[in-house]
């Protein structure tokens, strides 16, 4: 009886334990199992291409077995954090460029600086954008994104407005946008706007505009917030004018009212004639059949304010030496010409292999993206990027919605963001 009772208890224990213990790693026979994580929607083109590339990679490296871990963007990073906590993280994963330093600063990533020295840096874009304050590199570029000016050729032709050129200034943009703003159904409100100024994604909105007007967001190794300046104020005032008295851009509520994510389709659906957009935005525009061109960002008083995000492969610090070597093999494989060309066909990102980038992008659109990428600075990445940019964005959006005066919002935003950064780096040695 006692035996049966113990057995019953044991079964129950095993049931609970069984749900908690899974996972595996490398064995010692020379063969390595590499868990590779990336974000994509299941079954979409990126997922399919990645699987093909992995197959190609394992065929060339029979001693490496690759296990794929895929999830859509938000889910992927949510899961990743708990995986790292539980020691179950992939050994190599694709990181949104802005997160590399967040994971690195918390000791989750292997330092790739020495490995990066073995490649010819001149052949790749974005390596320098990944360097942290101490010059260390924790991620190797996978694909790059940088905003340029998208314009709808048909709307320009209909309004008889000359297309944007590389010499355009913010005044030229405003003048053209005014002519492109049209009320077609006569309800007193424009149905087509010349330009989309505000976006919840600040990479394609206030960030480059503030820089173009001579302001900046963070300096001193991205640890000092400097957004509270007359230049930033001028930039936000220009944006407020665009959405208000000049009326050539949909205002904050109208843009937000279109819903999260939908703001990126404003251009694709022809509701705005011009919009700042990263390379990934060519996809919805192409699939919507918009006849569009891209031009460099217009010049502000301090230049174009180009910024870039380099999505990167990172290696887990918990990876065994053999797994880390295998991970690096995968990274160099992915950066090679063949895989980069295949990846470029997806049209999602600018290839980081310069040789491929110069030939694989559409001839009419490629140069603007590549020149912008060359001129770009990083997006103020540091260990608390997600948190400080959210604190700051909240205030910037208050200003852009007209809820708070620009000067007040900038002062408050600088204080909020600096507090977040200060809290993390206080007492930090790295």
């Amino acid at each position, binding site marked *: 009886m006692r035996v049966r009772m113990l057995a019953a208890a044991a079964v*129950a224990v095993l*049931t609970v334990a069984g749900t908690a213990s899974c996972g595996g790693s490398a064995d010692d026979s020379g063969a390595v199992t590499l868990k590779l994580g990336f974000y994509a929607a299941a079954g979409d083109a990126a997922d399919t291409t990645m699987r093909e590339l992995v197959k190609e990679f394992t065929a060339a490296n029979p001693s490496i077995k690759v296990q794929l871990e895929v999830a859509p963007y938000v889910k992927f990073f949510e899961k990743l954090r708990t995986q790292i*906590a539980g020691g179950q993280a992939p050994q190599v994963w694709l990181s949104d460029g802005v997160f590399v330093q967040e994971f690195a600063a918390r000791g989750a990533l292997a330092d790739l600086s020495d490995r990066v020295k073995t490649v010819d840096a001149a052949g790749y874009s974005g390596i320098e954008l990944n360097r942290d304050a101490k010059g260390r590199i924790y991620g190797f570029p996978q694909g790059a994104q940088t905003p340029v000016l998208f314009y709808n050729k048909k709307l320009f032709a209909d309004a008889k407005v000359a297309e944007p050129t590389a010499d355009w200034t913010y005044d030229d943009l405003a003048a053209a946008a005014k002519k492109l703003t049209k009320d077609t159904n006569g309800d007193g409100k424009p149905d087509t706007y010349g330009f989309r100024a505000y976006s919840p994604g600040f990479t394609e909105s206030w960030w480059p505009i503030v820089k173009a007007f001579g302001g900046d967001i963070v300096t001193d190794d991205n640890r000092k917030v400097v957004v509270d300046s007359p230049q930033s104020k001028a930039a936000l005032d220009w944006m407020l004018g665009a959405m208000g008295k000049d009326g050539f851009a949909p205002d904050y509520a109208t843009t937000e009212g279109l819903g999260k994510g939908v703001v990126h389709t404003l251009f694709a659906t022809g509701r705005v004639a011009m919009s700042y957009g990263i390379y990934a935005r060519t996809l919805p525009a192409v699939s919507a059949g918009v006849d569009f061109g891209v031009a460099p960002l217009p010049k502000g008083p301090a230049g174009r304010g180009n910024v870039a995000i380099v999505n990167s492969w990172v290696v887990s610090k918990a990876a065994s030496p053999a797994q880390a070597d295998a991970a690096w093999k995968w990274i160099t494989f992915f950066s090679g010409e063949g895989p980069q060309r295949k990846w470029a066909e997806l049209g999602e990102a600018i290839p980081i292999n310069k040789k491929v980038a110069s030939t694989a992008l559409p001839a009419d659109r490629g140069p603007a993206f590549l020149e912008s990428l060359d001129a770009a600075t990083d997006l103020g990445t540091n260990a608390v990027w*997600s*948190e400080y940019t959210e604190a700051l964005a909240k205030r910037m959006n208050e200003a852009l*919605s007209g809820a708070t005066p620009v000067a007040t919002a900038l002062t408050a935003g600088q204080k909020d963001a600096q507090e977040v950064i200060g809290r993390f780096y206080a007492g930090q040695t790295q």
Partner: protein
Amino acid sequence: MLTRRAGKVAAEPRPPARKRRTGERAWAFAFASPYLLHLVALAAWPLLASLFFSMTDYDLMSSPRFVGFGNFTRLFSDGLFWRTLGNTAYFAVLFVPTQTVLALGLAIALNQRLRGMALFRAAYFVPVVSSWVVVAYVADAVFNPQTGIANQVLGFFGLPAENWLQDPALVIPTLAAVAVWKGVGYMMVLFLAGLQAIPEERYEAAKIDGASAWNRFRYITLPGISGTTFLVLVLTSIETLQSFEQVFVMTDGGPHGASELTVLHLYRQGFQFFQMGYASAIAWVLFVLVLALTLVQFRLQRRWVHYA
């Protein structure tokens, strides 16, 4: 011994009472072990772990660093935390009474014995079983400032259009309205069950005595369902303090944090900003609040809840 047939038990000499009781107890534990293990592994252990983490600086990656009550002192000076608590309270104040009164009204209306009533009951229950993502789409069809029905209705009466979910002053009331629409069906079903448990004779007796409809409602229905009402109030209050999915899907806390509820704040701190210790501290403060609120409600129930 549970499988033994009665006759066989009778034939055997009975074991001493103490020994029998120990044996039964062991069996009881054996059969309860899945539940006990579940309780320990999935409730007690995480609870204790989060209490421990609430006193640490823990980013999920490096090992937790003990900071004592540091997270709690930071919490009390965190303006954003207080703001989210204020938002949550505002949401609760709008949501709890509206949903309760509406659910009761619907239950009374749908408690009539008329044709096709099952269809109406089902109609009010559909939103309950729909996911928040689906509800968000439906809500967008109503509250979208450009294309929504709400503004068309306002326009029909010559009133200016509103930016429902983009206006800091309107976002919480709008969210509460949508939450009521989604949740009212469930509470209505609870009330329906309560109403149907009231003996019909009471109404008949009251009618014979000449009680008006209002008096029948006031002196028979309300006391008769006070137990259900209490349950509904406790459930909806806890639900509002734990609201997350709706704001996560519909507004993400915007505009400018006007709809940032406490659990969303907790989620961000823990899963976006790597501050699991701080998030645990928020969770514990929230736990204490929910507990306190529920205890107060239980205490007050003595004054107005009658169990027939």
